[in-house]
Structures are given as structure tokens and as C-alpha cells.
């Protein structure tokens, strides 16, 4: 019997066909005649509307492969050599990462977890438990980390680990000091800018911007057509990125590849040309700029360093010819230009460098100089700002009103009684050293002052953490200096480690107890495409879509093997801790889903019965919609009317101290005048790990490891063998999918490397084996290999010195923060060297393969990992599920 249900996963909404309890296929959602009409944009004599379907990013169509994946965590497991000592000592923690596991029953595993939580909290205090999740390993308001996970740990009391804005660091820590928008974490407002661009723009500056690659996890492939529309109108697309990225190589009219970390120098030279040639909006700057002349003096060589930031000067830093820099500045300065930025909507990685804050500030300054907010002049990069019904509200994941941790969804809000915090990028340092200090709240949306709050770990009177509960995804591939994480896990200070996840990611193997969670497709949830919460940090992010679509995430199949939903797991532990009823408030998962419907505008648009039957709801845009062009209020001087704004915007002010664009930052002068990374005037500063470093003599190449094209965070590559044979992604050799690393033909020739060779990327932090792609698409001094590998596969498991064959290039990146007072990370400030790998090809030696033993013991007919990857494992699973039904 075929059944069709819907869900929304990272990568977009999907229709799921199941047959007799087995997923048959996963398709995009195609609209029927009852769904609303599309919006229309009239521009340059033509009408534009989106097609009547919801797109997917290709990762969404891998959900079947992921659900039945070889690396699903099938059973609760306990580390073979884990000993439940009463004092938490002598637990063979040094074997984490290499020890095998044994199958446990749910009762055994959950009882152990509950006992350990009680033991450590009784012994050391509530704060000795710490826990953290990766972002977006699933989608849906119930299952998201700010909902179920947050409810459990806040009720328990734990040391929260603050996230850093790891995808766009520089914009968060830099841009607010130039133009405010701290409440959007440095991002700007994109309201209706698609229409503005369609009608007005002539040039698009796509600076460190790769939306075709990095937009999919949130907004599927919704915006690619918009960029085609603009292209077809003759709008010129200029891409700037050390890697001629996947959007660029398809679309660029011109590509510039600056040396990594020197983008701010290029930006300064552009401003220099505008100032010396008068190519900027002097009236606008006169009215809206603060201390512009001091910045101009600095650029002209009248500053403290007495160096004019001429195109020739920038040529020496960036490698881009001075003539081309002048031409770029003139095109930008004389045509209506929109662009950005290394920010959300297409993360290219420039803000994840040692100079990322200054790049972001100068970028904002450049757009200010061209009259930001006037028609066709804005920070906007072709991936947001579609028409939307601003009057329809359904909760987004970051919205406190739409989390089961809080009222009104819950009857009682869960409040964490522990004030002690930790900070994610440096968690290993804090655990290993037993002491850590840092500035800021991670996400500082509440005010610029929050960037400068002082934290110390342990807090006075608090204990260190001894129990680590890790949930979803892996930081081995997304945080930096991976081997430090290995060392942390092997420390006896962490007396007990739990890992709760769907797939056996690189980090799972370091746990004492592994709890198998099920996928989105095996449980109920509810969610909207690309909605991160109106009023949240990316307020109205659904304008990145053609359609606002809320999906009832029906349970397509029963949880596979022994896996269970995260909600069930946390309910069970809460029960064992004595507050199960308080945790659930008596609600099932389906009951909670209904709460989100009932507490939003959705309940006025569609009945619960109809919604759950149809599976989704599309909110149309009224034909007579009101426009709120982003930032236009500021340029034209009327009270701000955008759907999400602060009171002072109504007085025509920005969120800086002066309410203007600050070319000398008053907030920096007030809070941290001595900050070396962020000076009061934003300036290009050579990276602490860059071509001016001593280290460059030994490790002459820059590694850039941007957000991946063929993955989202760490979730897809590790579990989806289908995509291992995509030539630009990985190369499947001898049972192992090697990551592609790109090198310029000139350097490849010098190194004797040919396309397809195995190559070793190395520096003092570690070694990673990749497959070389020799291509003109990289800047000559750059090695490009995508970050976020979910596969961490050291040849010698547990040994931090070991060669990795999983493509976890984060092993090579520095754990150092951008600055003493800038707590962002900088993976794209990495130096390394590369050589042809002459050693033996390591045999396909997944750690997961060892778990086949566990599977076979539990079920002699169990399919092996290899069966599932290459053989008939999927058919075997199907047959079993059907037999059970």
C-alpha cells in the first residue's frame, strides 16, 4: 500500500512515498490547484513569477539514503572498556576514540545515563553537567535543539555552552560597530530587495558569496532562478573569492581571486579610488557618515601608518592587478550596485579569517559610500528579499514563542538554574586546562555591549564540568583544531560522555554511551521552510523563498532498528530522574505539534484535520501587497516602517552610538579602544597566520575550507554514499571516499601533483589525505578543500597525530580566536603545505565497519555496512521491516 506524507528537512520540503512501512521515494512538493497564486514582480517591461512547486537542495533528496544509511546508530551502545566506577575515576578514558562497543538495551543505557547524571550532580553540583548540540541536524520546531533539548537541559540545570556565529563571524563582531544591526548579528534587512534589484540594479558584487552552494540547507534552491533572471537582463555579476566557487563558475561576468585574508586590502583600494576620483555619494556621506574624513585621510596615506591604500599597494597584497582594481572600483562607483559580503545568504568564508571583522566593516562602509538604501544600491546578494505576507505568522526555530522550552507552547517555561557558561570554539581548552576566560555571549543580538561581557570558567564557586552530553552532528568537522577535541575526549576529567545522534558521526565514537535517535522521517514534527523566527536574528528569513510553506512533518515510517525519537529519549531520562511528567506536561509529540498550529496564525488559515491530511500549507502573498524596501527609510529619511525594527530606526537612526555610519567607531572607542584586531578605524591587517607570518616560510599555502557544496554542516557526506561519486565532492577508492582538494596548475606542476593523485595536506597540527583536483579555479597560493566533513577517520583511531583519510581538514585549522576580544573562529587563516602521497593506500577502514560485530551479535542476519553501501543491504532492511509489519 502506497502512502504519501510530507516533511521538511535540511534542504527543503519533501513528499515521501512509503510502501508497506518502507520509504519508496522522496520528491519535491508540487503544488496543486488549491494552492495560492504566485507573486508577480514587474520589472523592465516583463513580469516574473516563481513556478508552482517548492524546490529542494539535492541533499533533501538523499533522505532515503540517509535514513537507511550504513552508519545509522542502530542500537544503544556502551563502550566495551567503560567501567562504571563509583567515583568516576579509572574509566579507560584514554581509549575513547578507538574502543569498540557492545549493544545495550534501552533500559540499561538510560538507567546508566540517569545514574551518572545524578551521581555527578550530587558530587560536584548541577553545573558539572554540560551539553551541546550541532545546528540543524534535523528540521522542525519540536525536534530542534532550542526546543526539546533545551527543555530537558534547562529543567535539569547544566553549564550551557555558548555557540559562536561560526558561519559569518566577522559580520557579527565587526559590522555592528559601523552600522548597528547587532540584533541581526551584523546582517542587514532584505525586505523587498528582490523587486528593487529586478527593477534597478546594474551590477552585482558577489564578494565571498556562493549561494548555489551554501543556501540550500535553509532555503533549498529557491533563489537560483532569481539570479538567472538578473543575468538575463544583462546585470553584471562580479565574483570575488579565492575559489572560483560553484555559483561564480556558472555565472560570473568577472571573477577575482584575491589571496586569502587580503580582501580588506582590496576593499580599501576601492575606497581609495572613489575618494581620489570623486566616485561616491558625498551628500549621503555628509548627512549619514560619522568621522568619514578621518578614514579618508587614513586611506590617502595621512594616517598613522602613512601608507596610501592605492590600487598598486593592494595589488601587492591581493595579487590582483592595479588596473583591474581601478576598473572594478569605477564600475561599482558608476552603476547601481548591490552586493556583499561573506554573510548569511551565501557564506563564502571571508569573514571566517583573522581580518574578518575589518573586512565586514569596510564592506559596509563601501555600500554607505554609494548611498545604501537608494534604489538599486544596497547590501543584497540575490538570495533573500522575495515578496512575503508579513501578516502571516508561524513560528521559526529561534523564536522563543515557538519552542517547547517556553510558554506559550509549554504551560511552564523551563529555566536553567546554572549561570556558569562555556564557549564552544574553545571547549577543549577549557576542559583540558580547567580554566578559560573569554569575552562575549556568542550570539550578541541583545546589544553591542554583550560583545564585551566577561566570562570565566569555572565561575567563582562553581565546579568544572565532568559529564558531557553531546547531541546531533559532529564538531570534529565543523570546529577547528580537531585534534584538540580528541585530546579533550581522552581526558579523565570527562568522567562520562553521552552521544545521542542519528548517524555514527566522527564524534560519536568518543562517547561512553551512544543513544540512537531517529530521523525526521520517523517521528512527528512541524516546521516552515527557512523560517528562523520573525523577530529573531534573521527576521523574516522566509523572504529567501518563493513560497512560505508550513509543513506537517508526518511520521512516514516507524523508527528503524532500535532508534527512538529525541523527545522519547529525553522523556525517558526525565522520568528516571523523577520529573517525567513535568517534562512532557502529559503531551505526546503529536500534541506538541498541534500546539504550534494552535498558537500561530496557521489555525486561522487551515483546520488541524485538513492541515495534517494535506500535509502542508502555502501562505500566498496578497496581490496588493505593501512594500518595505530594506534600508530605503534611512536613505530617504522617512520613519522606518519595515516589519522588524527598533524604536530608534523610526527616528531615522542606525544602531550605532551616533545613529550614523561610523567610519571611526565610537562603540569601539568606548568599549575596547585598545583592541588590536578591531581598531577604531577598520583597517586591513595581515593575518596572524598568513603570507606575512614566519610560518609561511615552512607552510607556504593558504587553506580555505568554506561551507560545503555537497553537504550541510556535517550531516550528509558521512551517511550518503550516493554522493561520494560526485567528482567535485569526493573520490571513492578502496572503500573510502577521499575529499577533493584543489590546487592551481602552476603549483601542482612545481609539486609534481597530477589531477586525481592522492595528496597529503599537512602542517604542525595534523595531516589529511585528499585527492587532488588541479584547476585554475583557485588562487595560485590557495588550497581549497571544503570544511564540515562528517567523516573523521584517522588511520590510527584515537591517536591525535594520526593521518586522517576522512577529509576532516579542520584538523589543520587554528583553534586561535580572531582576536583577544573577538571571540570568532578563523578557519580560512590556515597555512599548510601539500605533497603527493607516496605511501600505501590505507584500506577502507571505517570505524563503523567494526560496529558490524555489534550488529551481527544482536542479529546474525544483520546487513553489514558494506552491504548497505554497495550491496543489497537496503533490500534486506526493506524485507525485514515488511516482515515485522
Amino acid at each position, binding site marked *: 500500500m502506497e502512502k504519501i506524507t510530507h516533511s521538511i528537512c535540511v534542504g527543503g520540503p519533501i513528499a515521501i512515498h512509503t510502501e508497506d512501512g518502507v520509504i519508496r521515494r522522496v520528491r519535491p512538493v508540487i503544488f496543486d490547484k488549491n494552492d495560492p497564486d504566485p507573486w508577480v514582480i514587474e520589472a523592465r517591461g516583463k513580469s516574473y513569477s516563481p513556478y508552482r512547486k517548492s524546490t529542494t537542495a*539535492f541533499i533533501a533528496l538523499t533522505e532515503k539514503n540517509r535514513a537507511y544509511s550504513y552508519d545509522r546508530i542502530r542500537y544503544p551502545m556502551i563502550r566495551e572498556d567503560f567501567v562504571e566506577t563509583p567515583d568516576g575515576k579509572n574509566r579507560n578514558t584514554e581509549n575513547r576514540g578507538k574502543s569498540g562497543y557492545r549493544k545495550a538495551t534501552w533500559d540499561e543505557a538510560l538507567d546508566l545515563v540517569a545514574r551518572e547524571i545524578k551521581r555527578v550532580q550530587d558530587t560536584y553540583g548541577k553545573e558539572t553537567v554540560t551539553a551541546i548540540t550541532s545546528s540543524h541536524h534535523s528540521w522542525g520546531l519540536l525536534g530542534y535543539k532550542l526546543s526539546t533539548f533545551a527543555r530537558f537541559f534547562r529543567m535539569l540545570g547544566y553549564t550551557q555552552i555558548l555557540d559562536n556565529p561560526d558561519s559569518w563571524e566577522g559580520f557579527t563582531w565587526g559590522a555592528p560597530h559601523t552600522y548597528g544591526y547587532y540584533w541581526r548579528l551584523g546582517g542587514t534587512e532584505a525586505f523587498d530587495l528582490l523587486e528593487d534589484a529586478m527593477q534597478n540594479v546594474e551590477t552585482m558584487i558577489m564578494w565571498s558569496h556562493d549561494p548555489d552552494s551554501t543556501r540550500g540547507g535553509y532555503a533549498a534552491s529557491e533563489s537560483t532562478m532569481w539570479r538567472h533572471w538578473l543575468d538575463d537582463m544583462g546585470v553584471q555579476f562580479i565574483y570575488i573569492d579565492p575559489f572560483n566557487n560553484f555559483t561564480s563558475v*556558472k555565472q560570473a561576468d*568577472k571573477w577575482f581571486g584575491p589571496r586569502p585574508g587580503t580582501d580588506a586590502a582590496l576593499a580599501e583600494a576601492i575606497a581609495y579610488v572613489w575618494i581620489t576620483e570623486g566616485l561616491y555619494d558625498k551628500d549621503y556621506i555628509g548627512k549619514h557618515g560619522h568621522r568619514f574624513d578621518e578614514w579618508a585621510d587614513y586611506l590617502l596615506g595621512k594616517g598613522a601608518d602613512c601608507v596610501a591604500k592605492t590600487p598598486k599597494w593592494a595589488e601587492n597584497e591581493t595579487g590582483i592587478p592595479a588596473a583591474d582594481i581601478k*576598473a572594478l572600483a569605477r564600475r561599482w562607483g558608476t552603476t547601481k550596485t548591490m552586493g556583499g559580503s561573506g554573510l548569511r545568504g551565501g557564506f563564502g568564508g571571508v569573514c571566517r579569517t583573522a581580518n574578518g571583522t575589518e573586512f565586514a566593516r569596510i564592506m559596509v562602509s563601501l555600500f554607505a559610500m554609494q548611498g545604501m538604501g537608494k534604489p538599486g544600491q544596497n547590501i543584497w546578494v540575490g538570495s533573500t528579499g522575495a515578496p512575503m505576507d508579513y501578516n502571516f505568522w508561524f513560528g521559526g526555530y529561534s523564536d522563543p514563542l515557538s519552542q517547547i522550552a517556553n510558554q506559550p507552547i509549554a504551560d511552564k517555561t523551563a529555566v536553567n538554574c546554572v549561570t556558569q557558561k562555556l564557549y564552544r570554539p574553545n571547549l577543549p581548552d577549557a576542559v583540558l586546562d580547567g580554566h578559560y576566560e573569554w569575552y562575549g555571549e556568542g550570539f550578541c543580538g541583545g546589544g553591542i555591549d554583550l560583545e564585551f561581557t566577561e566570562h570565566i570558567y569555572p565561575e567563582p564557586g562553581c565546579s568544572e564540568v565532568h559529564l558531557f552530553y553531546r547531541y546531533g552532528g559532529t564538531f570534529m568537522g565543523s570546529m577547528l583544531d580537531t585534534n584538540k577535541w580528541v585530546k579533550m575526549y581522552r581526558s579523565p576529567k570527562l568522567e562520562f560522555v553521552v552521544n545521542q545522534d542519528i548517524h555514527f558521526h566522527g564524534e560519536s565514537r568518543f562517547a561512553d554511551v551512544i543513544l540512537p535517535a531517529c530521523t525526521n522521517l520517523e517521528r512527528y514534527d512541524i516546521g516552515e521552510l527557512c523560517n528562523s523566527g520573525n523577530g529573531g536574528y534573521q527576521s523574516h528569513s522566509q523572504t529567501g523563498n518563493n513560497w512560505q510553506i508550513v509543513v506537517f512533518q508526518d511520521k512516514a515510517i516507524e523508527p528503524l532498528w532500535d532508534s527512538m525519537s529525541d523527545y522519547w529519549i529525553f522523556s525517558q531520562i526525565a522520568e528516571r530522574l523523577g520529573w517525567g511528567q513535568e517534562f512532557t506536561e502529559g503531551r505526546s509529540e503529536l500534541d506538541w505539534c498541534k500546539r504550534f498550529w494552535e498558537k500561530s496564525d496557521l489555525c486561522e488559515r487551515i483546520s488541524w484535520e485538513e492541515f495534517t491530511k494535506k500535509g502542508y500549507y502555502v501562505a500566498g502573498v496578497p496581490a496588493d501587497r505593501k512594500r518595505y524596501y530594506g534600508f530605503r527609510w534611512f536613505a530617504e529619511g522617512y520613519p522606518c516602517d519595515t516589519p522588524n525594527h527598533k524604536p530608534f530606526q523610526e527616528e531615522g537612526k542606525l544602531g550605532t552610538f551616533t545613529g550614523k555610519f561610523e567610519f571611526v567607531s565610537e562603540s569601539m572607542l568606548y568599549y575596547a579602544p585598545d583592541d588590536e584586531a578591531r581598531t577604531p578605524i577598520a583597517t586591513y591587517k595581515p593575518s596572524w597566520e598568513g603570507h606575512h607570518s614566519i610560518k609561511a616560510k615552512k607552510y607556504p599555502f593558504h587553506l580555505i575550507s568554506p561551507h560545503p557544496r555537497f553537504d550541510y554542516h556535517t550531516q550528509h557526506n558521512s551517511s550518503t554514499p550516493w554522493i561520494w561519486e560526485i567528482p567535485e565532492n569526493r573520490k571513492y577508492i578502496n572503500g573510502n571516499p577521499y575529499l577533493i582538494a584543489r590546487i592551481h596548475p602552476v603549483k601542482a606542476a612545481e609539486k609534481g601533483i597530477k589531477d586525481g593523485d592522492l595528496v597529503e595536506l599537512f602542517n604542525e597540527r595534523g595531516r589529511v589525505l585528499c585527492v587532488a583536483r588541479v584547476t585554475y579555479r583557485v588562487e595560485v597560493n590557495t588550497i581549497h578543500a571544503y570544511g564540515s566533513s562528517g567523516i573523521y577517520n584517522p588511520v590510527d583511531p584515537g591517536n591525535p597525530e594520526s593521518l586522517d583519510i576522512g577529509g576532516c581538514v579542520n584538523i589543520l585549522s587554528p583553534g586561535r580566536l580572531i582576536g583577544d576580544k573577538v571571540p570568532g573562529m578563523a578557519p580560512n587563516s590556515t597555512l599548510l603545505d601539500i605533497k603527493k602521497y607516496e605511501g600505501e593506500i590505507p584500506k577502507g577502514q571505517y570505524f563503523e565497519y567494526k560496529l558490524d560485530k555489534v550488529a551481527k551479535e544482536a542479529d546474525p542476519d544483520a546487513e553489514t555496512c558494506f552491504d548497505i553501501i554497495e550491496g543489497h543491504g537496503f533490500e534486506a532492511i526493506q524485507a525485514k521491516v515488511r516482515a515485522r509489519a
Partner: protein
Amino acid sequence: MRLGIAIDSRMCMSCYNCYTACKDEHCGYDTKLSKAQPQMGQFWMDIREWERGNSDRKIKTATVPTPCSHCQDPACAKAAKDGAVYKRGDGIVIIDPEKSKGQKQIVDACPIKAIYWNEEYQIPQKCTMCAELLDDPNYLSYLGDPKLKKPRCVEACPNNAMYFGDLDDPNSDISKAIAANKVTQLEPLAGQVTNVVHLNVPTVFLAGTVYQPKELEEVLIGATVTLIKEDSGEKWETKTNYFGDWEVEDLPKNAKFKVTVSAEGYKTVTGNTVTDKDRNLPVVYMERA
């Protein structure tokens, strides 16, 4: 009726939705028309891609999603014995999974290498244009519109770079798309009628950048660049843009060209090149006349 797929390379952004949808449909499932596509090693929808350009000053990629072309007169059918490959009334070419056993010559016969050999079953396999879904009256009946029933790759394309429909109907979307775009047959299939039609696959470009005298460090905007094909005298003319860049796309392949760069007040520069590959010609610094 002749069912076909038109694939527009210009609109393709190489996103792999079609590739993944094909795997999703055919891996792990036998149908009446085919055995399952193996999880690894076969690509019934193969994304063929190459880099264009010989310099980091100008580099692009061409992407040609390549399923079986469902030829009107299929070479694989001629090579097959016992009618193991047959053409349906709707034009879709099917390899019979039973009759084709052991017939490796069917794989070798395909001019575009779109047929794969299954070692385990000893059979040739390829794209079925999702004929088994098109045949199934229940498939997607819930959408209430038979026109929404398409091969999985076409449905999954987020950019409408693929069209499906009846090639014999001049009013079908696919026929209109073919009429409105440049048909670029895959080279090994030149001269043949196929039901999968490739549109806008680029041939070769020549490009370059023109600067003013070197010491000035300025690009030269508006210089005239003329390309003359040596054997025929055919002429292409363009001007340098705001970056001093020029580019002529879709030139005839493997032809010899004379290149002339001229601008008022400067000495004319000439040179020769060949369109054996996409070329960014050496940078030109003009001298004052």
C-alpha cells in the same frame, strides 16, 4: 507520440538534484522494465562536466546532464540479440533485464557511454525515462493533474532546466523550448534523431583582456577585437568592456583564427589562435600609435 526530455545546459547549475532523484527512484528497486540501479558505480543520470578556460583570468564550467538519449534508431538495439533492446510506441528505449543477460556488446554499442554493465546480474542497464512511473495510472494521481507526472529527474530540477513532453506535439512545452533555444546534439550522436535533446551546450570561447600601455596600469575600454576564421573569412567582432575584457562564445571548434585588437590612437595588435579548446589569449598591452 514521442516522449522526450530537453536539457538546457545554460540553465543547469550542476546542483545534482536530477542525479539524486534518479538514484532515489532506481537504486534498490527492480521494476518490470529494469533491475535496480546499483547503489554505487552506475549513473543513469550522469552529470558530465568540464572546465572551460586555460587561465585563471577566465574559467567556466559546462554541464551536460546525460541520461540515455533514447535514440530514434538506437545503436544498442542493433547490437542486441533476441530483441533485448526495444523501442516502445512512445519512443522510450528499454533494455529487457531478462533477455539482455550476458549481452555486454549492448554496453559497447552506446555512442555516448550511457549504458552500464552490471557485473552481479551480467546485464546492461540504463535510464528508463521513468517509463514504469509514466505507465502507472496511480503514480501522482493525488495531484489531480496528469501533466504533473514527469520523469523524476525533470520533476526534481529546481531551475526548470529540463522539459518533458511529446516531441510530436508542436504546442508541448518541450517542443516550444526546443524551438526557442539552440539544439546542440552530443557529438557522438551527430546527425541522429534522439528523444533526449540537449540545448545550449557551449562549444568554444575565445577571450582576453586589453590594457593601456603597461606603465599606466589601466584597462582599455572599447577597443575593437576582430576574429576572422582563416578558411572561410567569417568574421566576429566585439568590444572590450569596462574591465578591458572581451569574449566571443560558441565559436566553431578546431578552426584557425586571426585576432586583431585595435583602438583609436593605438597601434593595432594582431595574432593567431586555434579553437581547439577554450582559450584566454595572452594579455595585450597596447602601444600608442
